């Protein structure tokens, strides 16, 4: 029967003294295990981010919201003209035209033109004729949108907003 070298005997190097049951001084397996764990975790994380990228549309399928309209001949100054099916109010005064969007800046309902300005049916915001907020929860004034003259008509682009107070002469 062969005898294993006596533990602690002077001729055995220190590294051989450790029993296989003792913990290793450098947790090599722990290191490999942790590395594998973190590699898998980060792979899953990045894969999830990649999956989450899918529902965020890159191309918006919305149609152009540019249209041409003929203003009524007798549009009194300060009275809003809302082209049918559009969410924009056109004003004409002293040879100048401008357009105020009728999409409420609060939660996107369509405001209705009234004697004093605009009223929102959903949450009761009120706006003056120039779109500024007079009451209710709307955080900002109604947007003004781009208008350009085209002969006797005007071209309105609901999709493009302009600074408040931008008027165009026709």
């Amino acid at each position: 029967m062969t005898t294993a070298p006596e533990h602690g005997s002077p001729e055995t190097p220190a590294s051989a003294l450790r029993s296989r049951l003792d913990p290793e001084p450098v947790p090599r397996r722990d290191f490999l295990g942790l590395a594998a764990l973190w590699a898998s975790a980060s792979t899953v994380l990045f894969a999830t981010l990649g999956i989450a990228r899918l529902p965020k549309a890159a191309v918006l399928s919305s149609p152009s919201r540019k249209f041409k309209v003929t203003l009524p001949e007798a549009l009194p100054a300060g009275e809003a003209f809302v082209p049918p099916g559009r969410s924009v109010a056109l004003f004409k005064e002293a040879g100048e035209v401008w357009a105020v969007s009728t999409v409420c800046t609060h939660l996107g309902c369509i405001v209705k033109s009234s004697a004093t300005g605009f009223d929102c049916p959903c949450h009761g915001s009120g706006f003056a004729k120039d779109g500024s907020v007079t009451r209710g929860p709307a955080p900002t004034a109604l947007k003004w949108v781009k208008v350009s003259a085209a002969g006797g008509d005007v071209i309105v682009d609901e999709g493009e907003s302009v600074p408040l107070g931008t008027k165009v002469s026709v």
Partner: protein
Amino acid sequence: MSPGLSVFLENLRAAPRRAYEATFRSGPPTSDRTRSTFVFGNVFLHLHPVRTHRWSLRWSTTMGLGIITFAAFLITLVTGVLLMFYYKPYPDVAYDSIKDIHFVVPTGRFMRNIHRWAANVMVIAVLLHMARAFYTAAYRKPREFNWLIGMALLVVTLGLSFTGYLLPWDQLAYWAITIGANIAQSPREVTDALQITDRFDPGGLQKLLLLGSDQVGEEALIRFFLLHVMVLPLALVLLAAVHFWRIRKDGGLVRPANADERLGPAPLETYPVFTEAPHKTYQLAAIVKGKTAAVGRGPEGTVPSMPHLFYAEAGVAMLTVLVCLGLALFLDAPLKELANPGVPENPAKAPWYFLGLQELVAFSAFMGGIGIPGIVLLGLGLIPFLDREEAGTGEWFGGPGGLPLVLRSIVVGLGSAVLVDGIAIRYGWLREWFPKIPQLVVTLVNPGTVLTFIYAAYSIYLVKKYGSTRAGALGLFTCFLCGFALLTLVGSYFRGPNWSFYWSPADWPVH
């Protein structure tokens, strides 16, 4: 006849019986043993315990609210699948298909009505169920996690309702999607005021993810359809499975420490209680805390779940079906005009359970739609971790203060809601008083946040007065319930065209 053939014939004759035995392995539940295997041998039933405490079976413990909720969900599941045979998730076509279901499809109208009423029953039952769990302090250790799962189930239920009423593509649907998507976008109210929207725009991202476009259209409808018929029901089923299983793992329904003494011995006619003397060491004794099984009565005053618990559950479920069918026979689910992107209804009202929220967003989109609901959910989620007391567990309105405290909190909750909403209705709010005020101030200080602040302050006062977190929680929960009820009432009944206040819908101007 050859022996092979006769064996074959014998097997053929026995096939139905063997198929039955292979499916139901334990046979009819006639003994304690088979009643147990009836439960844990069945994947669905084993979410239940084998034995149920008699306290759990008392009507006043739960009022069956959890089972009502789940039964209503199962009804919507069945009727929902039936509706999907004809529903087409595409704008305009969707509206026509709902009209087909209503007027042409055999029993279509009845099925849609049942679907709608079961969904309403589910919303009511889930809210009452949460109130029950709160007032009996059922969220306390070891049930904290299940309280959180319950909150997630509440959110999913409301999400299912919201995505559901969008699908018909009528006026209600169209404007609800528009408003919902803009609430998702409302963090812009803050980022705009801070002028950082160009760099940091979570609101815009949320809206884009919800609508799949910058406008409400076909992309939005298919997304809501997907959420309604696939994502949310799946989430609900998974969460519900954990919720039920956890009840068992957390030691059954909550009950007072002295439940056994208060119940006394089971009435003589109770059958079965505990019919067989254990042949060997009673298995549950090893895992259930407390004394070992007493001869002649179930361990810890329990009775077999089959039949006691399952018959009670089946009864409640049948009652739920009856109520939904009854409502569906007489009251039709609404369908408004075809969606018109140019003209919202005036007033444009959400279904009743969102009208409290609509009243809040009419003060501030961000605080009403995201801020305050977020604070409420955070508060609800923290309750089980802040209230580590033991007094009153399992008792209705248990804890310091008890029922008188709850009644006083109802007065405070309703009173302050009437006061704050009344001031806003009668005198307007900051914007009317100081037209130049910055938006951020209106967002932070509006009737909704003021009310939230009053409730929080009252709750802290109660914590100090009673020296008990539970007292503060009782006050806060009651106040929020009252605030929710009052705002819902104002939103449903007292708001008219342009969301103005009217004492009665009869006073609405003709337009």
